[in-house]
């Protein structure tokens, strides 16, 4: 992955951030992959919902890019880019969406509920805000075990910021002074609900002070800014500063899920600066600044298409789970499983 990006970049000027092209490639891959998922969904090949991160690839990729082995990442529903940047194989995603029994969730859970906690990536539960305190617990435990230099990063939407769990989780992180970064993306809609029915403050970054966090804002359509602001927040958390709140501004450029046509998004909002497509902006910048040429870009697209197709094709060939072979035991201590007639 990285290689291609550097190859593309080789004939070029200096990117505004050393990970700029690496980030771009992941963003592009995310877009291509998600379009594929959407088309599979439209074709009736996916059961359940499909949730895309279109419009927030820049923020999301930055969330994953600065984390290292030993860090904790708790992504949410629009974080395909961040997950890939953190190292989640595309095949895991395809397997989860397509219900392969070889996927990390083995058909037990689907779509965006996947994760691999052993690799540091938590599997979200749907209840928004619930993962924040779980990350706090991971970080607290790492400190207790004597680990050093780790951080945790989790994402939340402007709607999810209004849950009690988010509040309790953000506050307890400050009390425990764990190295946590919360990246809140205000994409101006929570499902169909606009900001004015979600919160009453002028800017969600104003919450930072009330929790004892350091707060920063970023234009979520500007990849360079996202890389800079989020990497700085990660660095500060890693260095032992208080927890960090980054609030990014974007527009969700898809439906809430692929079942949703988002017809409630107003034209006025579509004309706002935050409604720009981060991927397009990035690509334009790359071409303008000649960080890559059109040919390299085209080649990257071809490679990505192949990667995506391969992941999907592999997952599609795999077996789906079989009810009669399933291990119907919810707990790991098998001898304590209740024998209910």
């Amino acid at each position, binding site marked *: 992955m990285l290689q291609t990006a550097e190859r593309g970049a080789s004939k070029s000027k200096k990117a505004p951030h050393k990970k700029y092209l690496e980030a771009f490639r992941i963003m592009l891959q995310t877009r291509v992959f998600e379009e594929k998922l959407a088309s599979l969904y439209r074709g009736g090949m996916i059961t359940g919902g499909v949730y895309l991160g279109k419009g927030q690839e820049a923020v999301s990729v930055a969330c994953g890019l600065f984390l290292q082995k030993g860090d904790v990442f708790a992504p949410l529903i629009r974080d395909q880019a961040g997950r890939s940047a953190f190292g989640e194989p595309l095949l895991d995603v395809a397997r989860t969406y397509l219900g392969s029994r070889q996927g990390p969730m083995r058909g037990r859970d689907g779509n965006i509920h996947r994760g691999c906690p052993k690799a540091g990536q938590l599997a979200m539960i749907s209840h928004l805000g619930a993962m924040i305190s779980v990350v706090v617990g991971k970080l607290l435990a790492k400190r207790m075990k004597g680990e050093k230099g780790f951080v945790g990063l989790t994402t939340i939407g402007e709607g999810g910021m209004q*849950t009690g769990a988010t509040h309790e989780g953000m506050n307890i992180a400050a009390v425990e002074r764990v190295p946590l970064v919360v990246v809140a993306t205000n994409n101006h809609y929570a499902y169909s609900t606009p900001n004015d029915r979600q919160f009453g403050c002028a800017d969600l970054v104003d919450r930072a002070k009330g929790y004892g966090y350091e707060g920063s804002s970023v234009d979520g359509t500007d990849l360079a800014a996202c890389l800079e602001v989020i990497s700085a927040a990660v660095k500060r958390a890693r260095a032992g500063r208080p927890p960090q709140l980054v609030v990014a501004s974007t527009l969700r450029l898809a439906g809430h899920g692929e079942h949703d046509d988002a017809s409630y998004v107003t034209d006025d909002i579509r004309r706002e600066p935050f409604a720009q497509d981060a991927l397009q902006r990035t690509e334009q910048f790359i071409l303008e600044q000649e960080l890559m040429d059109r040919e390299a870009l085209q080649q990257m697209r071809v490679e990505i298409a192949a990667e995506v197709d391969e992941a999907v094709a592999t997952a599609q060939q795999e077996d789906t789970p079989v009810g009669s072979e399933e291990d119907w035991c919810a707990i790991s201590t098998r001898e304590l499983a209740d024998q209910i007639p």
Partner: protein
Amino acid sequence: MSVTYLEAIREAQTYLLREDKRVFIYGQDIAGKFGGAFKATKGLAEQFPGRVLNTPISEDAMVGTAIGAAMEGMRPIVEMQFADFSSIALNQILNNAGTQYWRTQVPCPITIRLPSGGTKGSGPFHSQSMEGIYSHYPGLVVLTPATVEDAYTMLIDAVAIDDPVIYCEHKYLYYHLKADALPKDRLPIGKARVVRPGRDLSIVTNSAMVHEALAVAQQFSADGIEIEVVDLRSVKPLDTDTVLASVARTGRLLCVGEAFPWGGVTAEVIARVTTEGFHLLDAAPARINAKDTPIPYHPNLWSEHRPNAKTIAAKVRQVLAE
């Protein structure tokens, strides 16, 4: 013309908003043109300005706000986006709404709509049936309409009740169930209904499982075995009399539920029948519930996790063989 279970819920709310100015609806994404994750309030915000309100993602505060409004004389309907998210509001529901009248003698007429139950591909957090939890605590009325007609009349009745009502609407039935028209008559809240008469065995069940039970009864009928199916409708209060009368006719009892197997509606029904009608039983009662794991996402797993016609039929045979 026909009306689906979902449309019946929308029509009931239209009726309520029109007829009772104390009624308002409070929930996530229910307003605007959007009209809710399942479109149960589609068009209502436009038709009744200011009375169908979007809320932040704050289930605890949604219910708390409804409690306050109800104590002030309003009749709020709270729509949870999925029943599963009512876990966030559970404290307000059990400890605030459920105790309010008993503590202060001020009634708390809120109706909480819980889109409940499994549909394929919905997974562990969008498929739950929570009636067992809400029925366990005092102070709540808990309803599980299984038909288009009941979806309509029971919602209207729920809002008229001066106490907190948990109205569990089944998502699988939203589109799968159709009736010719909205009902003219109603069976009062608190009464179970014998939806199919029989003489050989009683299946006592509720919500979507009523239809699985009817399908099984149909099958057995071909072999001359007549299964009586009782739809509980209301799980709290639970109409023990109707259940006992059915068991008196058939002598055999199978309880079917979609919820998790420890406790819940099926255990309660069996406890009532065996404590109050032990001598009516000619054979051991039986029950069948979902499996004791989270609800799986994949359709192959999901259809095995919940009771289905095959597993119900097997249980029926077992009870009949005794």
